[in-house]
């Protein structure tokens, strides 16, 4: 079994608002990502999924826990070499196509920003060649390179964001809700593009989203996040055929199916965290089968698996 590309152990990310109040955005999360696979992180607003993405790429400094990327520890203070390794090997695609590109820069400069920062290309020609190559890969015309972001639609801008990440030939791309702000038909385009890229380059994805059907389509393994805790993890088949945690079940049942006959009579299952009396801090990881884990106390676990 080869070394995992990314290993997150016991990650905690707290934000201190003032002397009385600390927001515990991420409260003890463990997961791994293997090279070339897609890990889907699902959760609703306030679950901490975006925070995990940003902590992993070190936009924040983790409060506690260990993050290992490609064999190197990136959670503490990094020396220059580790930092460079991180900044070239791991990239991020953002959510808002309107805000993720600098409105005053040309598309070619935006895409080549990583190359310029790390002085990767020796000549101007080499730089331009790489930009053209990437533009073609993401399905944009070479004329687009000299234009400005506001001249493009949301989907096209998102492609520029992908090109910016891709040109660094990263091993891991964190996609932070990168399709949520797009139209449905454009979402499909972008997701297809991401899958193509993965096939060609063998990069891994940490796909952060709230849309379970899209997550199921693109991911190999999935983690369900609620209030800063990973309540259930496993391969997509394991989770979708046999969800154990009541939050996972409520999430699944809340997705509307585009099937009118069924959908009209269906009622979504609800899950009220407080009413349920579940305390995530008390739970431990229970193995269901294979790689399927659930966060629960022993009594809860027996309760929930009674019927399976």
């Amino acid at each position, binding site marked *: 079994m080869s070394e995992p590309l990314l290993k997150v152990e016991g990650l905690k990310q707290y934000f201190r608002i003032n002397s009385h109040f600390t927001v515990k955005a991420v409260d003890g999360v463990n997961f791994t990502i293997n090279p070339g696979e897609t890990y889907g992180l699902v959760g609703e607003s306030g679950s901490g999924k975006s925070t995990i993405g*940003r902590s992993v*790429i070190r*936009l924040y400094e983790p409060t506690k826990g260990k993050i290992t990327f490609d064999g190197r520890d990136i959670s503490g203070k990094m020396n220059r070499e580790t*930092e*460079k390794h*991180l*900044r*070239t090997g*791991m*990239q*991020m695609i*953002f*959510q*808002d196509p309107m*805000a*993720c*590109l*600098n*409105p*005053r*820069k040309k598309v070619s400069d*935006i895409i080549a*920003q*990583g190359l310029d*920062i*790390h002085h990767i290309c020796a000549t101007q020609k080499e730089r331009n060649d790489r930009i053209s190559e990437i533009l073609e890969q993401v*399905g*944009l*015309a070479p004329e*687009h390179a000299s*234009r*400005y972001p*506001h*001249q*493009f*639609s949301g989907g*096209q801008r998102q492609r520029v*964001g992908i090109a*910016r990440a891709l040109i*660094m030939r990263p091993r891991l791309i964190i996609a932070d809700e990168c399709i949520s702000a797009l139209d449905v038909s454009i979402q499909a385009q972008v997701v297809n593009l991401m899958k193509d890229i993965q096939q060609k380059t063998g990069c891994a994805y940490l796909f952060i989203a709230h849309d379970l059907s899209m997550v199921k389509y693109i991911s190999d393994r999935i983690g369900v996040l609620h209030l800063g805790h990973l309540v259930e993890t496993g391969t997509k088949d394991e989770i979708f055929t046999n969800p154990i945690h009541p939050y996972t079940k409520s999430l699944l049942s809340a997705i509307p199916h585009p099937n009118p006959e069924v959908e009209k009579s269906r009622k979504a299952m609800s899950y009220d965290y407080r009413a349920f009396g579940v305390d995530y801090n008390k739970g431990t990881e229970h193995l269901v089968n294979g790689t399927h884990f659930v966060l629960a106390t022993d009594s809860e676990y027996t309760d929930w698996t009674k019927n399976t």
Partner: protein
Amino acid sequence: MTDMQNNAYISFLPGDFELKGAENTKLDMNFASQRFWKEAAMRFRKNKGAVFSLITILLVILLAIFGPMISPYTYQQQNIKQTNWAPRVQGLENLGIFDGSESLKTSTGTKLKNAYVVDKETGAKNDTYYWFGSDALGRDIWTRTWTGTRVSLYIAVVAVLIDMLIGMSYGLISGYFGGRVDSVLQRFAEIINSIPTLVIVTLLMLIMKPGLMTITIALMLTGWIGMSRIARAQMLKLKEQEFVLASHTLGATNFRVIFSEILPNIIGQLITNTMFSIPNAIFTEAFLSFVGLGIPEPMCSLGSLISYAFKSFTTHPFQIVPPVIVLALLMLCFNMLADGLRDALDPKMKEM
């Protein structure tokens, strides 16, 4: 279009109902064509006040450069025999205005006096012309006005430019790093801000000799704070934007992020604020000169001219008019220009 099938109206061509084929849908060629600066320029042109102001300012600058050159006098040349002479312009004097005569109100009634007349009987005038008249020391007001404008503009522009550089950097750094750095820098700025300009200038006068440099430094020391506040506010707004985060994830240094990524987005605001600061600087300098803390004689600025002419305001009012009009025009036009710029670079459209 909700007509039902009305095939009778529509004529079909052969080949109409053949599939076009899917190759035409491959590459995404869509994009809009307008650009930020073009649209901004259009908006600016539509604003008549701003365009007029721009033209007026350019005219004033031209006159400030060429005005003294086309005049036969220098700004410090005195002619004791030709003091307080009214304006006389060639050509216009034939129309009855600017012919060198002024009406003086004395205790015995209004007297019409023309200093240019050499022969009382014939009314023949000598060969001298003072386009704006001469002052109490016999100096040409036209030359002095435009030389004064030069000085005022110079002081204002230099002071504001340096303000922009200092204030902008200060505000950007303070806003970017936040936390303790921000607190310290802001407290320092507040302390400096609370000292009145007049006090600073007076203190400077004690240390340095009155002159061009001193006034410029005085303006610099107090004007940068407004600029820094604007820069800091803009920085705080943009700091958390996703394109800035993207730069971080790509490994950009702080310097690069501040000056290469964020600064181009706020340059519009900074330019507008600079434009607003210029009339402030001009007026502050004029005020200081007026109260005698400004540049020394025989050098002149608009303020010192007004101050000097104020003494003969009741007897020879024509002396104060030119510098006052120029000062008023400059201030009004710079303000309108800045207004127009701000509307043209309207944040609603393209900035974050």
